[in-house]
């Protein structure tokens, strides 16, 4: 808005600040809880200011881990592997299927496109029993493959890359054909670099999607060494039938938040470009 209207500016800022407060408050509570000792957290009212135990708790959680739970390093590693495998797997498969759908004129092309598209209606939660059965039969329980493969097929990413490819001018393909580039060469040399911002945007979304998986890892992992950090937090609250160690749980939650935050901050520029850029 170019004109200067103090009232509407003030109102819109108030709305924005309220939104920020709503988003930040739970995170603040997490930080606060992670900075007190367990005794303080069981008293009412709950503290709203920082305590002095933050680094103590950090040392405890990182160094020794939470009692009854897998060491935090292993869980972070598992989550990282799962998130990366899901993100890369989804991106590779979606890029290839979108490439086929946009650039190759084969029979039943639209049928295949719609078949991919309707899988949007079948997330893991809906097909959880048959999927579990398949994964179990393939002997992939308690493996990284079992954690990731059922989540990899993705209609959203295929659809998004299809839109990206459709916006790439046909002349680029024609110029590449005249320059002697075959289909895979065009894909690698031209199409991928031209779509890199969309790929980055997809990576951010899919990494967070993968990182935050809860139900599926909970189902198929029984081995303590395959536990991911997100599912472990719930486990900690029920551990050992004693009072939950809120200060350690919150510290773990805080640590679990860091990788997605780093990914978002690191790729923010590409992310915004990938979702808004129209000109290729």
């Amino acid at each position, binding site marked *: 808005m170019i004109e200067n209207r103090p009232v509407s500016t003030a109102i819109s800022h108030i709305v924005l600040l309220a939104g920020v407060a709503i988003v930040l408050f739970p995170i603040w509570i997490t930080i606060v809880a992670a900075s007190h000792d367990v005794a303080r957290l069981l008293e009412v009212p709950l503290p709203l200011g920082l305590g002095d135990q933050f680094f103590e708790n950090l040392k405890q959680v990182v160094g020794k881990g939470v009692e009854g739970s897998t060491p935090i390093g292993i869980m972070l590693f598992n989550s990282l592997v799962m998130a990366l495998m899901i993100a890369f797997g989804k991106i590779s498969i979606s890029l290839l299927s979108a490439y086929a759908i946009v650039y190759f004129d084969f029979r039943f092309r639209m049928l295949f496109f719609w078949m991919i598209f309707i899988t949007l209606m079948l997330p893991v939660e809906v097909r959880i029993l048959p999927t579990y059965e398949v994964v179990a039969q393939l002997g992939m329980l308690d493996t990284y493959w079992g954690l990731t493969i059922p989540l990899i097929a993705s209609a959203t990413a295929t659809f998004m890359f299809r839109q990206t490819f459709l916006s790439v001018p046909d*002349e680029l393909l024609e*110029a590449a*054909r*005249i*320059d*002697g580039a075959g289909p895979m060469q065009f894909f690698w*040399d*031209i199409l991928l670099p031209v779509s890199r911002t969309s790929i980055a945007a997809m990576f951010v979304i899919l990494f967070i999607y993968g990182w935050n998986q809860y139900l599926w890892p909970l189902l198929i992992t029984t081995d303590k060494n395959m536990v991911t950090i997100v599912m472990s937090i719930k486990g900690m609250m029920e551990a050992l039938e004693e009072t939950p160690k809120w200060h350690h749980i919150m510290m773990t939650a805080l640590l679990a938040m860091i990788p997605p935050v780093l990914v978002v901050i690191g790729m923010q520029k590409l992310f915004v470009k990938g979702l808004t850029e129209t000109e290729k």
Partner: protein
Amino acid sequence: MSHDSSQNPSHIRLKGVEKIYPNGYKAIHGIDMEIEEGEFIVLVGPSGCGKSTLLRMVAGLEGITSGEVHIAGRKVNELEPSQRDIAMVFQNYALYPHMTVYKNMAYGLKNLGTPKDEIDKRVNEVAKLLELEKLLDRRPKQLSGGQRQRVAMGRAIVRKPTAFLFDEPLSNLDAKLRVQMRLVIKNLQARLGTTTLYVTHDQVEAMTMADRLIVLKDGIAEQIGTPMELYDKPKTKFVAGFIGSPAMNFIEAKLANDGIELHFGGINFTLKEKLNSQTSNITFGFRPEHITLSNNGALNLKVELIEHLGAESIIHSKLGETPITLRLNGHIDAKNGDTLNANINVDSYHFFDSESGVRI
């Protein structure tokens, strides 16, 4: 595939080339043409006439329904674009946006498996030729329209193809740059001696650049010839109206008195010699520059608008209800509404069959 043109004369031959789309639409109707080595051929016509389609069929980007295309003695109907040994310049340049100017030009050579130092040598040569040396590390986004145009041409030249194909390469440039680039392209082509097919809808561009041109209308080659042939002896009314600016004047007339007299708008116009025609319905055509003012002229023209261009004046007038354009040298002292008397230069008559539009 030899790049040595002395052994392998560039020569493009179109034999009954047709294009029918799957929906039954016939875009190109049986075109025959022989193109000599080094010729600059312009495909010209109004939008939708099929000129780009024809070019893309030669390039291999569009399938050929029937007929044959030969390039340098080889039938290329079934060959991939890259195997036809041609290079193309696109209207929007189609530069690879993520590659530098250097890489854009080198990409085709790289795919051919050309050794690195050979690529380097050729790219630098062409960059020098097109004054792109200082821009080699830039991306297309950082270039102006004219520079992008030169890179697109460089990408074509660097491969030393048998033929260049240009698809309206100048239409994204401003008027002044367009005139400049016209000369640049024409000079380059003459220097390199590479056979060229050039598509444009701009008849001035077509006339100034072509050795020969093909005028297309609705997928039919109306006429193939040198610019002056088309100007002096247009085969159809369409060609006559399309070539030349301002366009030719046409008057619907009746042929009478055994083909020696022409009647139109209450004027009886006696011809110098008898006109042999099957029909008496004639379209009489003459160019704006072939009219001279004369006090006892046969035409009484009512002036509607005068455009003063300095060296010449364009006068839009009416003969009865028929619009007539005059192109006269120097400054003409007349006002809107004035009546001018004029004669048509005797040697500059064109006659067409009113129905078929064919020249008589």
